[in-house]
């Protein structure tokens, strides 16, 4: 067995069991204690089994949403860092989350209360907003060159982030306080989803992105050398950049419309994983997805229980952990 195969197997086993345990354990923890044995006790009918109802109806969707969002944001973070050849990039660097936030906020402020197949107007609007941001940034990156300028991508993304933030503040300023409060809560990131509907809506998008992610790691390794070096080793650079950009952006848009712009997952997780498994994207990407799932589910348990019965938005927890970590990373970089 070669080195990379061994490391890949070890990483998937280790981080996979971490993710599995966290998803299984998270629903057991909360203000009403339940027991895992009673949840899976087949002798009690489901209608009478309160523990099973709490587990499957009230808490499991949230744990699964946390896992899906965490895995998606962490994997997208890996892809964006490789695409931009910048270890400090996050899934939100290119303005995807700002576009999503603007969409969500418009839906909240305009009081769109429709919902379709369990997907609320806010969720749909935020996804549409993220697609808008992706389109603008991509058009910018292509405008000046026949190639695909990652520098312009970065600059356009940062500018778009600032511009959308100003729009958000502007609409918020005009909105009444109840709506402003809802918007604020949305911006903090929250996994308190109602049932499995939103999860099922976001999952196909994430699945498509993960198929692309399965193809990307090897070309991304070569892009870390240099675009020219990658091209001379047989990589179709433009195609890889395009697939990486669109798949990671779409996945980020889906994750953000599900859980809000939960920060720092997309940067802490890839870096922690790299410290453990090295730089090879074939290991880093799947390991980050699994560890991201475990990390966000755990952070959400802390958010739910730290100040119970008050539930904190999970974005506050990840930022409290992630902020100092990010600074440490910056100082550590030479």
């Amino acid at each position, binding site marked *: 067995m*070669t*080195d*990379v*195969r061994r490391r*890949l197997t070890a990483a998937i086993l280790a981080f996979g069991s971490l993710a599995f345990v966290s998803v299984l354990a998270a629903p057991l923890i909360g203000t009403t204690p339940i027991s895992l044995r009673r949840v899976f006790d087949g002798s009690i009918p489901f209608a009478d089994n309160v523990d099973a109802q709490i587990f499957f109806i009230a808490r499991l969707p949230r744990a699964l949403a946390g896992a899906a969002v965490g895995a998606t944001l962490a994997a997208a973070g890996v892809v964006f*860092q*490789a695409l931009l*050849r*910048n*270890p400090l990039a996050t899934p939100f660097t290119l303005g995807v989350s700002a576009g999503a936030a603007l969409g969500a906020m418009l839906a909240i402020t305009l009081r769109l209360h429709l919902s379709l197949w369990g997907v609320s107007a806010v969720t749909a609007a935020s996804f549409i907003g993220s697609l808008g941001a992706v389109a603008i940034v991509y058009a910018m990156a292509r405008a*000046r*060159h*026949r*190639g695909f*300028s*990652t*520098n*312009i991508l970065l*600059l356009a993304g940062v500018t778009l982030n600032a511009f959308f933030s100003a729009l958000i503040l502007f609409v918020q300023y005009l909105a009444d306080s109840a709506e402003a409060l809802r918007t604020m809560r949305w911006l903090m990131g929250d996994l308190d989803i109602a049932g499995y509907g939103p999860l099922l809506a976001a999952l196909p998008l994430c699945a498509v992105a993960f198929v692309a992610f*399965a*193809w990307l790691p*090897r070309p991304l*390794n*070569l*892009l*870390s*050398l*240099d675009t*020219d*070096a990658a*091209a*001379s*080793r*047989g*990589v*179709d650079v433009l195609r890889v950049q395009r697939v990486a950009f669109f798949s990671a952006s779409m996945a980020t848009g889906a994750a953000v419309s599900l859980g809000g712009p939960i920060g720092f997952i997309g940067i802490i997780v890839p870096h922690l994983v*790299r410290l453990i498994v*090295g*730089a*090879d994207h*074939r290991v880093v990407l799947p390991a980050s997805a699994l560890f991201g799932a475990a990390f966000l589910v755990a952070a959400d348990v802390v958010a739910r229980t730290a100040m119970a019965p008050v539930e904190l938005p999970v974005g506050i927890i990840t930022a409290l952990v992630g902020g100092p970590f990010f600074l440490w990373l910056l100082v550590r970089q030479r």
Partner: protein
Amino acid sequence: MLRADSVTYLHDRGGGAAPPLLPDAGRFAQPGVQGVTLRVERGHVVGILGPNGSGKTTLLRLLAGMLRPESGTVTLNGRDLASLARPALARSIAVVPQETHLAFDYSVLEIALMGRYPHLGTFELEGPRDVAIAREALAATGTLALERRSFATLSGGEKQRVVIASALAQQAEILLLDEPTASLDLGYQFDVAALLARLNRERELTIVVATHDLNFAASLCRSIVMLSEGRVVAAGPTGDTLTSMSIQALYGVVADVYPHHAAGHLTVVPLRRVRRD
């Protein structure tokens, strides 16, 4: 045999005079080449000389198939590079850039293994054979002892040799190098020159090297192509091409060129600057 037939690449898209906003936009505004014809015979070492902005790098990128000529053709053993798929191209032609800055910290062996990319299927992981080829390439460049080291911790000369090893792992018949010694000190320059000479001798590797170092070119190259403002101004065997007259015409420097017996090749001693004409 690699040959270019009246290759032109100007990529001046008309009115593109605005300076690039960002550093990497600069690569799209490199000097062009016009009507360049050259032949690189199998097993030869060819040097491309020319002042800054004369189109050396553009020519190398055209020869590597990374740029498509606007007119003219580049062929490898009679086949147009434009008709070859990228992986097939990479199995025939390998490129070593002037410098390599990694975005992430890979180990030396991982860098060498990246050369196996065009030999592997989409989802294929490297097998023992690929590892053996990569380690053999590291051994050939004298860097096998560093295989577990992180690339970022290496010296400039070690990095350049590891990158050459990565190109060797591609098992291409042609190696193109863009100023491989530009950022190296004298000792490492010597190492790289000796390494390339040995690879040419022992593996019959065909080598094309763009360089500013005339003595490096004199020691290594069987023939020389001189570029000025995107056109070939002189080409032929090194002994005929590398002369005081051609050097003065190319760089505006009066130089003495004579065979150095201890070195065993021509030596160029620059004497003074004159105006270029």
